[in-house]
């Protein structure tokens, strides 16, 4: 990945990929555990029915529906993993920001829950498409989301995507004061990546919001995924 640009900072990208994959695999494990117990419960109910206890068919139907629901949830998570994995396929392509923001927020839900943070997302009804490097863009968005989740406002982080005409604008609420007062708060590749992608990030509202602007058309500078 990213040898031409990420270079020595490639480990940051790998760490991001690892963190995302860990979240996803943990979710999948949980769904599998629920499916395992519910399927086991169906087996138990059938077993005790064979011993003479009346079978509650409504309960069995409900359990089968629940299993089907858990499979759908697990499938959704696996699709997220697949999209994340394919984000490194192309160094430059049309990126649907609605999908990208949705994916990052969806994967981050468990991280947010473990920190006691509520994640809220607002997307426009029509797609906001930009030309960018999908993996690097995801990395930038996640970095600011992660910082916000570490210092949320009233236990909540809002992620709002807007179509601003010639750019997509992602506003993430949270306390970003640490980014200003600590030189180590922004990982090394971030400023360079932002420049390469033409992405600008402004901390507004007394550092309570990170406003990330992604140009719809930008000449990407020598960036490969």
């Amino acid at each position, binding site marked *: 990945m990213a040898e031409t640009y990420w270079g020595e900072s490639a480990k940051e990208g790998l760490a991001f990929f690892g963190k995302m994959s860990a979240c996803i695999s943990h979710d999948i494990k*949980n769904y599998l555990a629920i499916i395992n*117990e519910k399927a086991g419960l169906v087996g*138990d109910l059938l077993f005790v029915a064979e011993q003479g206890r009346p079978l509650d068919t409504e309960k069995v139907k409900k359990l089968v529906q629940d299993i089907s629901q858990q499979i759908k949830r697990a499938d959704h998570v696996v699709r997220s993993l697949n999209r994340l994995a394919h984000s490194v396929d192309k160094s430059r392509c049309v990126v649907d920001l609605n999908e990208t923001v949705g994916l990052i927020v969806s994967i981050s839900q468990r991280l947010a*829950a*473990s920190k006691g943070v509520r994640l809220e997302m607002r997307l426009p009804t029509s797609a906001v498409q930009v030309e960018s490097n999908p993996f690097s863009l995801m990395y930038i968005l996640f970095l600011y989301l992660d910082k916000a989740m570490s210092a949320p406002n009233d236990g909540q982080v809002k992620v709002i995507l807007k179509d601003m005409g010639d750019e997509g604008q992602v506003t993430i609420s949270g306390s970003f004061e640490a980014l200003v007062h600590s030189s180590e708060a922004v990982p090394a590749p971030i400023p360079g990546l932002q420049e390469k992608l033409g992405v600008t990030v402004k901390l507004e509202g007394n550092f309570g919001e990170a406003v990330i602007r992604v140009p719809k058309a930008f000449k990407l500078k020598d960036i490969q995924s």
Partner: protein
Amino acid sequence: MKQRILIVDDEQEFAESLSERLTIRGYEVATSLNGQDALEKVKGYNFDVVILDVLMPGMDGVEVLREIKKIKPLTEVIMLTGNASVESAVEGMKLGAYDYLMKPCDTEELLSKVNKAYERKAEQEERIRAAKVADIMSSPRSVLKE
């Protein structure tokens, strides 16, 4: 007497399904969806074994384990982890957990560990009782001091 089990997991559907399966098998089971509630239940009732998820919002499993061991040192704890990495579970073992299992877990394996954990708790309680009796026998007046 029925073995008293507490299942602690933020995934309600997991906790309830496992609870029902253990109940069918003759265990007395309660559930908690977070660490705080689990600790309240442990304070108020003498559970034999706690089945405890490692990764939970708010108070995580390792913190809950630490508190359980302060409140009821003899209550045995089996850690459940959804991570392929067992670091947290191993940390739990160092803090006194009886054992750990990875999700999704095999039911027979879980039951085997629950039963062995129960036996260990019963043995320890028996040893404490025997030591108290021996103490009384060696010094009958010690009872009057208590």
